[in-house]
C-alpha cells in the first residue's frame, strides 16, 4: 500500500467530495455535502450535509422528498475507500420518515453480524407477514449515482438537465474503475 502524507490524503478526500457534489448539483440538488476530517486518523473522513453541525438530508428538486447521504471514507494510497454508507429516501427531515435505505459496511460491525455488507431496507409491509423494515435485502455496493437515477426515474425527482443520464453514466464509470472490491 502506497504511503501518502496528510496533504495528499486531504486532496484525495476533497476531490472525492467535490466529485459527489458535482454529480448531485448537476442532477437533483443544490445542497452540498461537507467533508469532516476525523482528528484521530488523518486518512479518515465523514461526508454528510451539515447544517449547524447536524447531519441533514439534501433538498432535492421535484417534490417534498429528501435524500440523506452519509459516507465514512478512508484514503488508501491515492484513492478513497468507502468504509460505510447510508443513503435514505425520506419524506421529511427526520430519519423516522424514511421510505428506502441503502446501507453498506465494508467490515462486519460485530462478530455475529449475519447480514450482507451491502443491503437495502424498505419501510413497507407484506399483506400477510407484516413489516419488512427489518429485512436486509442483499445488494452489491450501490453507487450514489444509481440511487439518484432511481429517484428521478421512479420517485418524481426533477433533473436539472436533460443530460442527467449521461452525467450519472459517466460518474458510474469512475465508480467502477475506482472501486476496490
Amino acid at each position, binding site marked *: 500500500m502506497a504511503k501518502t502524507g496528510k496533504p495528499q490524503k486531504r486532496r484525495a478526500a*476533497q476531490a472525492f467530495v467535490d466529485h459527489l457534489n458535482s454529480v448531485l448539483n448537476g442532477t437533483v440538488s443544490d445542497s*452540498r455535502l461537507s467533508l469532516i476530517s476525523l482528528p484521530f486518523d488523518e486518512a479518515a473522513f465523514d461526508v454528510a450535509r451539515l447544517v449547524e453541525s447536524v447531519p441533514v438530508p439534501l433538498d432535492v428538486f421535484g417534490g417534498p422528498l429528501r435524500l440523506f447521504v452519509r459516507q465514512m471514507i478512508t484514503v488508501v494510497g491515492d484513492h478513497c475507500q468507502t468504509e460505510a454508507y447510508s443513503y435514505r429516501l425520506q419524506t421529511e427531515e427526520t430519519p423516522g420518515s424514511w421510505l428506502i435505505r441503502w446501507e453498506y459496511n465494508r467490515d*462486519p460491525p460485530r462478530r455475529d453480524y449475519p447480514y450482507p455488507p451491502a443491503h437495502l431496507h424498505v419501510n413497507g409491509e407484506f399483506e400477510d407477514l407484516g413489516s419488512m423494515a427489518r429485512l436486509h435485502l442483499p445488494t452489491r455496493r450501490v453507487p450514489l449515482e444509481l440511487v439518484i437515477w432511481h429517484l428521478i426515474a421512479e420517485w418524481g425527482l426533477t433533473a436539472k438537465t436533460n443530460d442527467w443520464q449521461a452525467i450519472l453514466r459517466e460518474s458510474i464509470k469512475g465508480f467502477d474503475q475506482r472501486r476496490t472490491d
Partner: protein
Amino acid sequence: MNVTKTPGGADFIEMTPEEYAEYVERQVQRALGMSSTEFRRAYLAGELDEANPSVSELVGLLRIGQNGQASEA
C-alpha cells in the same frame, strides 16, 4: 472548529478531538437518547432495533468494526 473550502466549494471541517467527541455525542444523543459508550455496548450486545435508520448510520459514524477495531459481540 476550523472551516475552509475544498477547491469545489464544499465545507472542509476540521475539529479538535474534543470538538469531534462532542459532535459524535450530540448525534448519538439526538438519535437514540444515549451516550456513544452506551450505544456501542448496546449495539454489540444486539439490543438495538435494526429497523431504526439511525442505528446503522451511527455504527458507521462510530466506526464500529472498521479497520480492525473491536467487533466483539
